[in-house]
């Protein structure tokens, strides 16, 4: 099966006063139609810039310098701005983390959804309004006729995120990029939003890229996972393989540092496993493997040569010298 989205060797750079940083540094990945790909990583690893690159919505000082983003065979990077605009919303749509800052505070939510619909479909204002009410019902907002007339500040955080999702799916996109869609929400609301996304995905046969720092969310929602570290993908596998047998020391460290993974109850000797140090500053990336300064296994080779993302087990790739040698 050909993938719906196929990213090849993508590099996105930012020119800042302190110099150039490579926020996305040679990323290749693909998502098959109907699949949910989870992209996991800590803050600053480049996961948001990767998704903004796919949408071609980078901030003014960001630039894609190489690579291809093939969406159903078409390279999005070769499209004109006008052609890209026609695709955004209709073919691929995005849900952001902060529903309050991504909604316009001075328009009714119904009008905002209707605007998105009218941009892509030739319908009357009245029809677009009716469609947005219907969408609000679809995303589980009770009394949608009344809610459509509300302003964003009238709604709770969970409802705002439902509105954002309604807007994103309004033109039935084939690919939905969700960037930390539940991070600002309470855990009971998060569970409901994830369930809603799953339901919409199934109903609309959507493909989803879910960007998150929460491994629990990935375990529950994704079929495939890519782990990002300092602008690169360091491991990619099916969700079962990644959780059963993480190959990269960074993935292993992440999984072990979750409080839920440790001994149950208050054992006086309890300790969490940690990853020493902190995420590297993209201005000072260590030579060789980017994780080498925090890695428990660092060999001499790790300090000199950067490992490439290589298939180590069937369908399971990692960028690590140790995994390469030990996995065979």
């Amino acid at each position, binding site marked *: 099966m050909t993938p719906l989205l196929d990213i090849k060797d993508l590099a996105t750079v930012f020119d800042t006063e302190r110099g150039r940083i490579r926020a996305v540094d040679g990323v290749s990945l693909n998502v098959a139609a109907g699949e949910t790909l989870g992209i996991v990583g*800590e*803050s600053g690893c480049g996961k948001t810039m990767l998704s903004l690159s796919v949408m071609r919505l980078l901030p003014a000082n960001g630039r894609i310098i190489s690579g291809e983003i093939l969406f159903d065979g078409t390279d999005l990077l070769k499209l004109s701005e006008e052609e890209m605009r026609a695709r955004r919303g209709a073919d691929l749509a995005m849900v952001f983390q902060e529903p309050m800052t991504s909604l316009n505070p001075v328009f009714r939510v119904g009008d905002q959804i209707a605007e998105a619909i009218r941009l892509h479909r030739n319908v009357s204002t009245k029809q677009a309004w009716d469609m947005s009410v219907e969408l609000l019902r679809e995303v589980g907002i009770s009394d949608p006729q009344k809610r459509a007339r509300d302003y964003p500040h009238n709604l*709770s*955080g*969970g*409802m705002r995120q439902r509105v954002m999702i309604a807007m994103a799916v309004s033109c039935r996109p084939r690919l939905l990029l969700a960037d930390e869609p539940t991070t600002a929400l*309470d*855990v*009971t*609301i*998060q*569970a*409901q939003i*994830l*369930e809603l996304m799953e339901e919409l995905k199934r109903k609309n046969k959507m493909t989803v890229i879910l960007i998150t*720092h*929460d*491994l*629990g*969310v990935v*375990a*529950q*929602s994704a079929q495939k996972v890519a782990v990002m570290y300092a602008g690169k993908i360091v491991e990619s596998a099916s*969700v*079962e393989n990644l*959780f059963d047998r993480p190959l990269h020391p960074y993935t292993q*460290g*992440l*999984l072990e*540092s*979750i*409080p*839920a*993974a*440790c001994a*149950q*109850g*208050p054992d006086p000797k*309890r*300790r*969490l*496993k*940690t*990853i020493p140090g*902190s*995420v590297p500053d993209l201005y000072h990336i260590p030579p060789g493997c980017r994780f080498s300064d925090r890695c428990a296994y660092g060999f001499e080779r790790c300090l000199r040569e950067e490992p490439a993302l290589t298939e180590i087990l069937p369908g399971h790739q990692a960028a690590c010298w140790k995994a390469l040698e030990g996995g065979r």
Partner: protein
Amino acid sequence: MTEKLLEIHQLCKTYNVSGGFFHPKKRSVRAVDHVEMAVYRGETLGLVGESGCGKSTLARLLTRLEEPTSGQIFFKGADIFSFSAEELTAYRRNVQMIFQDSYSSLNPRQSALGIIKEPLTIHRIGDQKTREKTALDIMAKVGLGAQHARRYAHEFSGGQRQRIGIARALVLQPELIIADEPVSSLDVSIQAQILNLLLDLKKDFGLTYLFVSHDLNVIRFMADRVAVMYLGKIVETAPNFKLYERPLHPYTRMLLAAIPVCDPRRKEKSVAVRGEAVAENDQGCAFRNRCPYRTAICSEQSPELQEVDDQHFCACHLAGSI
């Protein structure tokens, strides 16, 4: 059990909110509603709840950053709201707070050493020289070296800033630390470092923690005893393992069911998670509109916290029978 370090008795805090320019009618919101709770010396009490449940207001009342509408808080038997200025100073020396946002809670124009030293200056402990030494000692304890002493908040990473916040709280050698979401803005690998540090410090300094968090996994790791708060009320308190193994309150069960499990093969939810927390100013149980078990009595009477099992308290009319 051991000595009660802190005792909270029928504590209430009501805020008046105006309905806005077009609706000048005032409403009142009960952020903390008849809270009854105790913290024992040497334990970590985890206080868990979702946003808006009143857990931060409770922490602010405990540090006397807010005055209560009614009710009392006793620290080692003394009512903290009737303290004289002098007694209040002594109380604040004994009860210190660690904040969530380490960036906005650190003075950007002071060096790390200056920030950590300041409580000693305020409380007039030691002279210039000994203060500096004490501050440097504490810095070493939280994993910051002398080379960090002259740096400013913006030069540190999030995890290091939280270490400064912890050092500042510890420098007065308090008995009780109130930690309000101390790790929720940190990445998971850094969060683990800070949680381990807090455990070590508790042992080294013989501390008592009131650990406030929305994260049930973090609370499970840290707490000896857990209190669950919902819309201003404590709905359940129990020793750690009892709460997680046999939760009694339907809200606690819903919370636990909502945590995404780090196991791709376990996707079934034991309890349906639905609804949002909406405060209703009436007599009934605050959770009833989300509760799958609600009966007639739930809308008539607010349930009291009662001991259902040994040390296991629950505020639910149906506790033990559902």
